[in-house]
């Protein structure tokens, strides 16, 4: 009896190490997907952290690729580099106009496609899909060829035209998805309640389509603001913010670029969080 008890008591310690490794292995296996996903998340965020950290660097020489010493100089003087804030302002301006243009044109197309049956439908759908399935260089080079041969001067207007062109499809896709998923009976109900077509559109259709329109507008703002390839071909000597960054990669990157990159990241995070909170509050009330 005592013998068996001692063996029972001593047996576990000898067996425990393999069991714990088994447990660890089991845990690892069970959470493998989660761990892999978190690794990918880290891969996505790593460059942003580097941009943040190097915005506090005081580089030796022109290139900001190696850590030298801590400094807040760039943060206190973000416009201290010639042309940087000018290009930033130009990019914001173009993005704003491109968003307005693409959202207006794209929303109209989306409503036509989602609401009406007409003969040219499949052709229109193909024309909307193609710009998204085309490498940017091809679009950029062909549009620039056209401008060049028509003798149009490259600059603000050619950039704006190009940006509206490539943002359009994304707006159509976003708005169309929203309008298609909307219950047509809501509009019928409004009409049954003697709403005029204009009233139905303004009080029922538009509010329901609004999130899709907002998504399309946000997307085109982001795409336009960040576009380099198409702008590079159609800008001439005009310099947008991405083009400034591109040029600085060859000449030497000022720390201010990291400051602006970090600021953009923070503004985006704050906007998203505010949007989430607002959405939650609306749902609650």
């Amino acid at each position: 009896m005592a013998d068996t008890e001692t063996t029972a008591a001593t047996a576990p310690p000898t067996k425990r190490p393999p069991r714990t490794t088994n447990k660890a292995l089991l845990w690892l296996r069970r959470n493998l997907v989660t761990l892999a996903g978190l690794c990918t998340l880290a891969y996505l965020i790593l460059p942003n952290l580097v941009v943040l950290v190097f915005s506090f660097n005081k580089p030796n020489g022109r290139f900001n690729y190696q850590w030298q010493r801590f400094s807040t100089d760039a943060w206190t003087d973000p416009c201290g580099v010639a042309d940087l804030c000018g290009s930033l302002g130009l990019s914001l301006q173009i993005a704003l106009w491109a968003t307005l243009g693409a959202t207006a044109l794209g929303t109209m197309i989306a409503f036509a496609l989602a609401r009406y049956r007409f003969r040219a439908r499949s052709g229109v759908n193909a024309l909307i899909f193609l710009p998204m399935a085309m490498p940017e260089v091809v679009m950029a080079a062909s549009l620039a060829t056209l401008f060049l041969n028509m003798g149009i001067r490259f600059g603000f207007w050619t950039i704006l035209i190009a940006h509206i062109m490539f943002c359009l499809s994304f707006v159509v896709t976003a708005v169309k998805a929203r309008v298609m998923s909307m219950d047509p009976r809501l509009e019928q109900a409004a009409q049954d309640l003697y709403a005029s077509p204009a009233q139905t559109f303004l009080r029922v259709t538009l509010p329901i389509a609004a999130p899709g329109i907002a998504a399309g507008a946000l997307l085109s703002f982001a795409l336009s603001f960040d576009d380099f390839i198409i702008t590079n071909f159609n800008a001439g000597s005009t310099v947008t913010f991405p083009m400034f960054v591109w040029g600085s990669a060859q000449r030497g990157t000022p720390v201010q670029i990291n400051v602006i990159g970090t600021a953009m990241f923070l503004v985006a995070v704050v906007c998203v969080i505010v949007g989430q909170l607002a959405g939650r509050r609306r749902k609650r009330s």
Partner: protein
Amino acid sequence: MTTTEAPAPPSGPAGAEPLQARKTPARKRLVPYWLLLPGILWLVVFFAAPLVYQASTSLQTGSLEDGFTVTWHFATYLDAIAEYWPQFLRSVLYAAIATALCLLLGYPLAYLIAFKAGRWRNLVMILVIAPFFTSFLIRTLAWKTILADGGPVVGVLNSLHVLDVTSWLGMTEGQRVLATPLAVVCGLTYNFLPFMILPLYSSLERIDPRLHEAAGDLYARPATTFRRVTFPLSMPGVVAGTLLTFIPAAGDYINAELLGSTDQKMIGNVIQSQFLRVLDYPTAAALSFILMAAILAMVTIYIRKSGTEELV
């Protein structure tokens, strides 16, 4: 279309037209065309017409001084392929590797958000999207710092003998990562990863979690459940994601320029330099047409394959 139909309804070819016109007034029938007109006009003038125009440019000969004229010079295409086939091949290869890596890296994260994140879902989603609000050129330049010679990443890869393997595969050279194919592929993977994650997530999110329980009840192990239930149901996301990463990656020239050296030039770099530096417009036009045709052909085959074998 609108202009031809508006003034002449009686001369319409089919007899059904006037009948329909009586049912709905012509003004209302034209509403979709008026809605489409400005946007479609924009796309026709600034997207479709330039492509046609570029086709004619690719068949021109001449010089900047004397001007270019269409001479149906098809040899431009042959010369372009003969001279730049390595860059074409490299673009397809890098884009394919980057797409495969995106799928490998993106799938777990999309799965995590769709099924495991629970109340953290919104936070993880923000963390996926928010980095992309920093200008992507700035983020790509950050990879120069991360992959720098003698930096921690290269140090770790070296001590794990990973660089020996990648050098043997021809992806790196010696003790460095920057200015090698690996750096370019790493940049491409990074830049196009969200285009893989978002479609994957939206198709995974639609899968009813009860299907997993059902598979478990039928004694399927997790791996089997994934292979037989989850993955086939996520195929629309996989197809959309791979297309959304492969197409832009094949035409990209930013990663090859910033993270690679002259040995890693992709076809986008060639088009860019032909157009903006050499000013040889016919060659640039021919190159971008070949790229477009090649991608369209590959995409068509791919969609057909994935449609018949896995989607059904």
